[in-house]
């Protein structure tokens, strides 16, 4: 079985602009939760766009489940930085949108959307419009929409960045709880070291100008992770280690 995602000497630049990603290579195994962290402009989000086929490569190769990204779209779901909901549709209909676009039958998509909303604890808000929800609830709908596709790979581009710390911690725990039921592979872009350590089993620390894979940190904390995980000495030492790496990357950039 091929690795779920494989980057080989990947290069990316936009038009004639500077190199955004420089010879990035890595292999992601099924079930990995990979956090991408690094200074602004290091190409974290670009990596997600390359996996999803939203952006063309400038060099090297990307394989998703052994296929070109364009041919593997049905294996992927994307959660954006903003909830990006369609404001004129109810929560239920929003979750159904990708299923509708993939020509899923009406009764089946309604069923899948209902299950997805139950998974994120928003069944009672199915008939609401996005403007009637809080920021955290909107993001949950966005996650439910992605999960309704039963993806093999979930790409999350700093989804909780705009939320307050308590909501963010809570959603992190919920995300891992959902993953216990459906073990998708995740690529999670974040600026928060604590969030990266709490969620992932592998952290890619990237440097900027051009974006390179500076170091990989293996997170050996056992799943399931809970509030107690955050209190553990190992968690604290990993946070300290990644923070130090990040600081050194940022210093080198200066």
């Amino acid at each position, binding site marked *: 079985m091929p690795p779920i995602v494989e980057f080989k000497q990947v290069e990316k630049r936009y038009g004639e602009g500077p190199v955004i990603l420089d010879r990035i290579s890595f292999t992601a195994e099924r079930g990995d939760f990979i956090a991408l962290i690094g200074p602004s402009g290091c190409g974290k989000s670009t990596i997600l766009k390359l996996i*999803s*086929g*939203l952006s063309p490569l400038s060099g090297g190769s990307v394989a998703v489940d052994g296929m070109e990204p364009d041919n593997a*779209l049905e294996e*992927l779901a*994307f959660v*954006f*930085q*903003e909830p*990006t909901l*369609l*404001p*004129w*549709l109810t929560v239920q209909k929003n979750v159904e*949108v*990708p299923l*509708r*676009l*993939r020509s899923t039958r009406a009764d089946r998509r309604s069923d899948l959307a209902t299950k997805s909303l139950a998974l994120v604890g928003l069944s009672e808000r199915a008939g609401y*419009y*996005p*403007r009637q929800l809080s920021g955290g609830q909107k993001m949950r709908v966005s996650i439910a929409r992605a999960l309704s596709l039963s993806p093999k790979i979930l790409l999350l581009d700093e989804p909780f960045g705009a939320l307050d710390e308590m909501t963010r911690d809570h959603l992190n725990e919920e995300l891992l709880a959902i993953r216990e039921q459906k073990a998708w592979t995740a690529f999670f872009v974040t600026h928060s070291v604590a969030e990266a350590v709490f969620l992932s089993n592998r952290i890619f620390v990237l440097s900027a100008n051009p974006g390179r894979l500076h170091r990989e940190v293996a997170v050996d904390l056992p799943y399931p992770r809970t509030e107690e995980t955050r209190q553990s000495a190992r968690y604290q030492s990993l946070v300290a280690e990644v923070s130090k790496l990040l600081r050194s990357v940022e210093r080198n950039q200066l």
Partner: protein
Amino acid sequence: MSKQALTRTLPLFTGVLFIALWYFANFLLSSERKFLLPQPHLILQAFHDQGPSLWSAALNTLRGAFLGFGLAVSGSFVVALILSLTPLVRASLYPYLMIMQMTPIIVIAPILILWAGPGLVSVTVITFLICFFPMVVNTTQGLISTDRNLVDLFRMCKATKRQEIFLLRVPAALPYFFTGLRIAATLAPIGAIVGDFYAGNSAGGQGGLGFLTIIYSSQFKMPALFATAVTSCALGFLFASAVIALSWLSMHKWHDSYSRADS
């Protein structure tokens, strides 16, 4: 008195005050100039005396306004869809749309009359020309302003171009569309009356309010002229109210502009 009751009664008081001031202004005028500002009850009398003519003219104007407005809405939607396709199409067509908007309607009107003759067709075309531009500009802007991430989401789900347009871009453009529609709705009766003024035709009973204005002013029927102005204003209100109601029906459930301040 509660704030709510005050909000309701204040416009009434303003109206009464306005009429009182009107009478007072008339009182101040010398007797040979009083006809320039007819007293409100004389205007009401003109409504009574000229009722059938005003009613028939208002209906004719309404017909021209409605036809021109309807054509502008549907035509602008199609043109906006074409313009939203690529920047290249916009660059190719925008200058000509600008030319159409920049040319004063009073210059176009005589040309149209020579082409189509006086009457409903010319009035409709003049209304169309006045309403078209704000509609097409706003709708195009809405169609090209769709959230980039939503477009990416649709593309990741292999949405067809048709799905992208009708399930995403068109509904996302609704607030812009209604902004254009509101502007066009206030312009439509004005356009029809301007059209009447230049291209109205009483033959066959097709004269509108603009045409009636020419007749009353040549006869120095000042109360009837004021009655025509009030009727024109009422037509404007009718159009604007219809669009506001349509906008509310389409968007009040989901658009932020309809959220109550306390919600």
